[in-house]
Every structure is written in C-alpha cells, then in structure tokens.
C-alpha cells in the first residue's frame, strides 16, 4: 500500500488510528476523578506530542540513519517558529504561507550549516552544530541582528509576537488567531461529554496529526529507499564507502537538510498552534531534548522517536502539575499517619521534583532497555506472540543496525 511494504503499512495504519483516537486514548480517566491528573488528552499537550514527534522523526532521519549526532537541531525549530510569526505580522493569521516559509528558510540554514559542519565527523561535527545553534540562540535572545539594523527581528527574550500595529496586509476583521485558509481556527475545540468522561477534539491537533502522518510516511519511504540504504552504509562504515570511490558528502548533506526541514516544520507548527516564537526554542537544552527523545525512544527505529517525544513531554506537563494538594487527595482514603507518610514519600518525585523522576527514568530505560522504549515494546510483544520471534520486523531491523555502532 502507498508503495511501502506490508509491515510498514501496518505500522502506518496503527499510527494513524492512534492519532485519530488520541483524544480518547489519552483521556482514559473520568474528569473529576483523582486519576484525572494523568489525563493528557487536552489540546495543547496533544499538539505538543505530535509536533515534537515530527521534530524527533526528522532528527532520527539524520542520526538514526547516518549516525551523525547533531547537537544544534533546535536552531531549525526556532527558525521555523520565527518564520511563521513573521508571516502573521506581514500577511495575516493564515498558517499556510508561514509553514512553507518555515520549511524553506530552515532548509537554507540547514544547507549552510550542514555544508560547513559535515566537513568534520564524530564529536567534531557535534560541536560544530552546537556552536552554530548557540550562536543563533545568543543572537536571537538579545536580538543582535535587529539591534545592528536598528529594527526588531526576533524581539529578544520576550519573544516575537503579533501587535495590532503590524502591517498584516491581508488581514480581515474576523481574524484574531491562527487559522487554516479561513476554514477553521486552530484553537477550535469540540468537547464531547460522555457521562463522567469528556473528550476534546481540537482542530489544531488534527491539523498537526495529519502532517505527522504525512511526515511519518515520508520517513518510511526514505528509510526504505536506496538513498536510505546509502545513509545506513555511511553509518556502518564511511571509510569503506569512500574507498569504493563514492563521495558520501552529498548524501549526508541531503539527510541533514531534510532533517533540518522537519525541524523547521515542527517549529512552524508550534507557532501555528500558539502565535509566539521565543529564542529559548534554540537553546542547547532544546537541542539536547530532541537527542534525548530519539535515544530514549530508540534511535534508528521508525516509531521510537515519536514515543520518546511523547514520554518526555508527558512528564514535563503532567508530573510538574502534581502538587501536595493533589497527593493528599490521592491518599485521602488512608489513615492520617499513613497519608502523610505516603505524601512525604511521593513528594520529591512530583511537582517541582518532576526533573528527578525524568532523570531516573532516563537511567532506568537506558540500563534495562538498551534499544530504548521500542525495545520495551518488542519485549512485551514477544511475550504475547512467541511464534513471531524470528520474523524481522521494521524495528528489529533497526535495533540490529545499531548494535555494531559501538566502538
């Protein structure tokens, strides 16, 4: 189907179904119940899941296939956001022109940065990309270019946003928030109340989800194409490739640019959901985050990066909100002494301690699941269908791929 193999089609269909029913899947607990704290099915977080999923898929196209570890990918995320907000400021709130611009501009930057950085490999490549991204972060954070030209380009640390005094030459009276071609506003949400449950169907989320599916499909095509094979060959032994008379640079550069475009698109989508672009999106911590997402999920696998992105964003948004009040309500059924004891035990790991939980989980995952979350899924899967053990699935392929990488 769609020119991809049966296993890949199955994977794509599973992802599509998950994306379609995410509002249900992510809201398993009745609103108002003590467990509702763990519900993640509200528009903003669902949007983040898919957008960072796109970001991580793109990152994985570079890192998973070629082994080149870019530590500056957040630069493209930031550029994408700035491009979209600038289109809001100049044209109107339609997201489409901005998204095109985001992809184009990030491709140009990726071409330039990739062209220079790919002259080196290994850690030297990583530090070059890091240096470029940190430079761009510093420039945006203090709006150095804007200051140099005597105008505003990034609006510094406050972040670029739309003011009523902006030109907005195509603006109509009814436009006040980002929308898709005037058909639907990104923030439109239909809430379905079903008994004690409530489910949010958000236009912006479904827009992002459709794009995620397209991007996921493209990623599968790239993985399975001769181009993808070539990239894997680069990963397993670049020297040998060079000896055979092949210049690998154009291939790696292409992968870098494609990956940068994915990041630019993701950044553009962030600004499409929420019309603000801040320099923090370019900081090394943001670059590091996508690296962590990819490794956590399973580098070189198709679905892994998406899982990793979801995992990190879930903890950041859900665990940070669990305060002592919530804890007390959970353990309210216990006798007083026990209740306080349980709250004291759990307290360091939630709320302001959400980072601690995330750090511990990073360590546990990498220690016990060397292939990332995908391997965890496979292990569970293996328990259920022992017969399939020898069948080489997509993810098992990728998992095999990564093992010889150790040196």
């Amino acid at each position, binding site marked *: 189907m769609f020119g991809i193999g049966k296993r890949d089609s199955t994977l794509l269909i599973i992802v599509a179904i998950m994306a379609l029913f995410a509002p249900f899947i992510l809201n398993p607990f009745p609103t108002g119940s003590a467990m509702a704290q763990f519900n993640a099915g509200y528009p903003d977080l669902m949007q983040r899941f898919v957008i960072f999923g796109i970001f991580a898929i793109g990152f994985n196209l570079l890192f998973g296939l070629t082994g080149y570890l870019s530590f500056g990918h957040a630069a493209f995320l930031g550029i994408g956001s700035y491009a979209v907000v600038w289109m809001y400021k100049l044209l109107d709130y339609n997201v489409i022109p901005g998204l095109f611009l985001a992809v184009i501009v990030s491709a140009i930057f990726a071409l330039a940065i990739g062209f220079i950085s790919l002259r080196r490999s290994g850690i030297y490549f990583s530090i070059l990309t*890091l*240096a470029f991204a940190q430079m761009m972060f510093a420039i945006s954070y203090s709006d150095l270019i804007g200051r140099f030209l005597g105008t505003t380009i990034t609006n510094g640390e406050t972040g670029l946003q739309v003011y009523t005094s902006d030109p907005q030459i195509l603006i109509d009276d009814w436009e006040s928030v980002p929308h898709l071609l005037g058909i639907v506003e990104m923030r439109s949400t239909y809430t379905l109340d079903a008994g004690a449950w409530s489910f949010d169907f958000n236009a912006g989320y479904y827009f992002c989800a459709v794009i995620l599916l397209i991007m996921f499909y493209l990623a599968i095509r790239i993985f399975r194409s001769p181009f993808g094979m070539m990239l894997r060959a680069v990963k397993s032994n670049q020297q040998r490739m060079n000896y055979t008379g092949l210049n690998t640079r154009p291939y790696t550069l292409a992968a870098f640019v494609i990956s940068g475009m994915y990041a630019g698109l993701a950044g553009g989508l962030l600004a499409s959901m929420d019309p603000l672009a801040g320099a923090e999106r370019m900081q090394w911590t943001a670059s590091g985050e996508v*690296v962590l997402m990819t490794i956590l999920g399973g*580098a070189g696998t198709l679905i892994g990066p998406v899982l990793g992105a979801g995992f990190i964003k879930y903890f950041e948004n859900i665990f940070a909100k669990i305060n002592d009040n919530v804890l007390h309500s959970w353990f309210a059924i216990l006798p007083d002494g026990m209740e306080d004891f349980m709250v004291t035990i759990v307290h360091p790991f939630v709320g302001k301690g959400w980072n*601690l939980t995330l*750090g511990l*989980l990073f*360590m546990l995952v990498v*220690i016990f699941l060397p292939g990332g979350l995908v391997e965890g899924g496979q292990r569970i899967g293996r328990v259920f269908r022992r017969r399939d053990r020898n069948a080489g699935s997509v993810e098992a392929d990728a998992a095999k791929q990564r093992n010889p990488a150790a040196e």
Partner: protein
Amino acid sequence: MDAILLQILNGLDKGSAYALIALGLTLIFGTLGVVNFAHGALFMLGAFCAVTVQKLLSLSTITLDETQKDFLGRPLEIKTPYVESWFGPETGSLIIDWSVPLAILFAIPVMLFIGYVMERGLIKHFYKRPHADQILVTFGLAIVLQEIIKYFYGANPIPTPAPSAFVGSFDFAPLLGLDTSLAYPYWRLVYFGFSTLIIGAVFAFLQFTTFGMVVRAGMADRETVGLLGIDIDKRFSIMFGIAAAVAGLAGVMYAPINSPNYHMGMDFLVLSFVVVVVGGMGSLPGAVLAGFMLGILESLASLNEVKAVLPGIDQIIIYVVAIVILLTRPRGLMGRKGVMEE
C-alpha cells in the same frame, strides 16, 4: 593598554577555571571515550562540598534571647556554632572563616569515592555501548545529582565566602610601573595558582609515575596492555576517580567566586565540552591550552572598544572561535587521530 592587560589577566583566571574543568572531562571523555554529561554535575558537587563543610562547621546550639524578638514577636534564637564553644570564639570563627580551604581536604576523598563508585557501578557497563546510550545515562545521572542537591539545599545560591584574609584585590600597576589601577582580587589569583598547581600535578602524575605510564599506554591501546597481564580496568576506575576529584576541586575553589547553586554544573557543561573538543580529543595539553585560549579571548571580546565595533561579540566569541578552529584544524588544537571521529 592597561585595559588589555587587565583583560588578559582576567582571561588567565577564567581560562584556568575552564582548563581545570576541561582537564577532568578530557580524562574521561577524550581518553576513556565516555561521553560524560555528568561532568558538570561533578563540578557542582565539588562546590557543594564547600557549602557542606561550611554548614557543618557552622552547626550551632540554639539559645533563646528573651530581650530580643524575631519577626513574629517570639524570643530571638541566638546561634552559637559548636566549634566556637569548643575552641573558643576566636579560634572557632577562624575555623569557620577558613571553611573553603578546609573543604579541599573534605572534597578529595569524597569526590574520589563518588568518581570511583560512578565508574564501577554505572559507567563500566557503558564502555561498549553506543555513545548515544552514554549520553542518555550520564545526562540522567546529572539531572538526578542536581535534583538531590536541590532537595537538600534549595534552588537559591548559597554564599560561600573566601577567608577574610583574601578579601580585596591586589594592584599590579605599581609593579609594572603603570600609573592607572590594575587591581585583581586575591582569591582569583589564588584560584589561578591553585589551578596551575592541580594541572601540573595531574600531568606529573601521568608522566612520571608507573601508574600514569600504564594508564597512558592503556589509553593508546587498551587491549595490548590487557594482554600484558595488567589489570587496566582497575586503573581506569581510579582515573575516573581522579577526574572526578579534579572537577570537584575546581568546584570547591570556585564556590567563593560565585555562590554555588544546584544548576551551576549545567551552566558549565556545554562550555567544557567545547573546550575539550577545541583542544582536540585525547589530548590533555590541548584541553588546557584551549581552556586558557578561550578564557583570554572571551575576556578580550568583552572590552568596551571591541563591543563598540561588534555589539554582542562577547556572547558568541567562544562559538565563533570553536568553529574557526575546528574548520582550520580538523582535530582541534592537538587532537589525536581516530578518537571519537567515527
């Protein structure tokens, strides 16, 4: 002229901090080949060794003073540190005053131990794993370490002053026959001296002891050394401990310069990687050289005359220099071929 001299002096001091942190990192990263994202956290733990010693020495007995009131109108709590009641107020307050230098004695065994345990308990199992996995596990560890510190010490910076004997600054101008001021704080001069001492000691240790010789041989060719019947693994664990101690000492002595806080390690993490890589993978002298070079260039870039021409150059100078060096010298300043280049 005096402005440039002052910034070079300042750059030497900044550079000595960078060099010291990078030296510890390159022992682990450039030579053992482990991407250690927890190195900044080790630096931070060192600084908190100083905080801990200060807190331990200031442990006090509490007596209530009925004549004075606290903010709620209750009797004021008067704290008398135990050391003051044991050794008399004067000796006692002198001991507290010197808590940062005393912390060095505390930090060496503690950091050696932490480094050794970290290697035996965790890193050892990751030598053969992909670098990606090393990044994830050490980054996780760094977060856990800093969250533990935050849990016990809070997020606010904790003032950890240098002994009062080192308060104030030394004026170099008369020495050089200049008529302007060329003042530089005593404690920063101490830091500079201390760093060069530690850097010298590490080099001497690796160069002139049998242990160091074996470790150097092991870095170059681990398998052959192993075949010779030498237990290289054990020595590497000790090296890891030494690297942690170097990072920790850098942190202890840094505590009076800037009040330590739980995330100071992350602030230095990226920078220390840049220094190591610019210096060249696998080269100890390279890391030291790069540390001093970046420190001096960063200081010079913050000269007002430079900033007037290129606004904001001080924010990006380190990265610009890193890019230029890595493009002109493929393996940094003094990198060895084949280390982390795959």
